[in-house]
């Protein structure tokens, strides 16, 4: 079996993996990182989105062996319950989730978007989150949350409405 080395949320792991093991299953079943859910079989829903070497990727559409020598950040690597990442806090403040299934992927995609566009328009936010489906919220609060998160991350004072 191939042997891989992968850094996940700042910790290095050496694992023997079957070639068919998907990255998302490595994260969930081997490393216990169940913060990253699986929502589909087709790469459409984006629930499983993580950062792979600094850019968003759908971890259900990457083999664990392809992530050999790579750096992975999951939702669990962003912040802790006592100390949420500004984007996590913004989703909370703006009620940008209902069931929460899409939320980890939404937040990772939002953070990826801000790397290229730190102050995105609503249109840019919708385009940036195009690969992430939400079956609950209707997206309006998600767009608001990303706008708020962006302002918080750029250090701007945000008024609580």
């Amino acid at each position: 079996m191939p042997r891989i080395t992968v850094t996940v949320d700042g910790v290095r792991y050496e694992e023997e993996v079957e070639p068919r093991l998907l990255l998302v299953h490595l994260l969930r079943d081997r490393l216990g990182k169940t913060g990253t859910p699986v929502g589909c079989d087709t790469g459409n829903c984006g629930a499983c989105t993580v950062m792979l070497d600094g850019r968003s990727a759908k971890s259900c559409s990457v083999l664990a062996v392809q992530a050999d020598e790579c750096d992975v950040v999951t939702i669990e690597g962003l912040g802790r319950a006592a100390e949420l990442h500004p984007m996590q806090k913004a989703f909370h403040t703006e009620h940008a989730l209902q069931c929460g299934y899409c939320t980890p992927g939404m937040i990772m995609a939002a953070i990826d978007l801000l790397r290229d566009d730190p102050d995105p328009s609503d249109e840019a936010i919708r385009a940036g989150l195009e690969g992430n489906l939400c079956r609950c919220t209707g997206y309006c609060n998600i767009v608001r949350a990303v706008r708020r998160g962006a302002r918080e991350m750029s250090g701007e004072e945000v008024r609580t409405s």
Partner: protein
Amino acid sequence: MIPAAFDYIRPASLDEACRVLGDAGDEAKILAGGQSLLPLLRLRLAYPAALVDLGRVPGLRGVEDRGDHVFIGALTTHDEVLRSAVVREHVPLVALATATVADPAVRHRGTFGGSLAHADPAGDLPAVALALDCVFVARSGEGEREIPAAEFFVDYLEPALHPGEVLLGVRVPKLGAGWGFHYEKFHRTAQAWAVVGVAAAVRVEGGSLEEARIGLTNMGPAPVRARAVETALRGVAPAPGGNGGAGGSRDPLRDACGEAAEGTAPPADLHAGQDYRRHLARVLTYRAVRAASA
């Protein structure tokens, strides 16, 4: 779902890749970005005995300005294509279409070559390759060969590559001054895949279309070049009021675009029937030519 078991081989050079693929024959599949292949494996629609991962083979990735054409390496990701100033400046139709492919996360991993080698009639890039008369460069143990775009898309998910043959990259001709481009795509909001798409490259001279090249997405089992409408468009004024005559209600461009679905055999699925797809081909060709001529 979990894919069926397969062997995984990650060659470190092109020579090694060709050798491994030559030995494996039909049993092996090439893995590039995996954005089409991994969903197929997960749905158990494909059962390759081995995957040969080109992800770490050097020399297959990047965009190069080569004078009269731009060479795009097969392993260049959609995201890299979009960030390339050379692509935007010299082959803007590639950028216009790539911007509509999937979503940011898929574009970070999915590759230019994988999109073409997959030969999916619903993919956006094959129509562009057809409209621009691109040339595909492929290599196997037997050596290198060139395949013109017009011969590359054989049938549904069937490119003109032999088993184990590696697509190295694509030569995209620069069409130069006087040409205008547009990619017009119709899709459902929640899914990027085209119901129908139209890639247009046009050259306008003295107020009328001197030349038009039209590639169609999702209008048959393979991506197609719409030759009938290209002929019909020749000499037509792309702006309303041009050939139409002052106050005339006829729009010759719209009439010409009536030929857009000529000779096509579009699929019927839950998104659209054949007649609706033919209708879309005509309407989208009209929009694409108008935008490309502007």
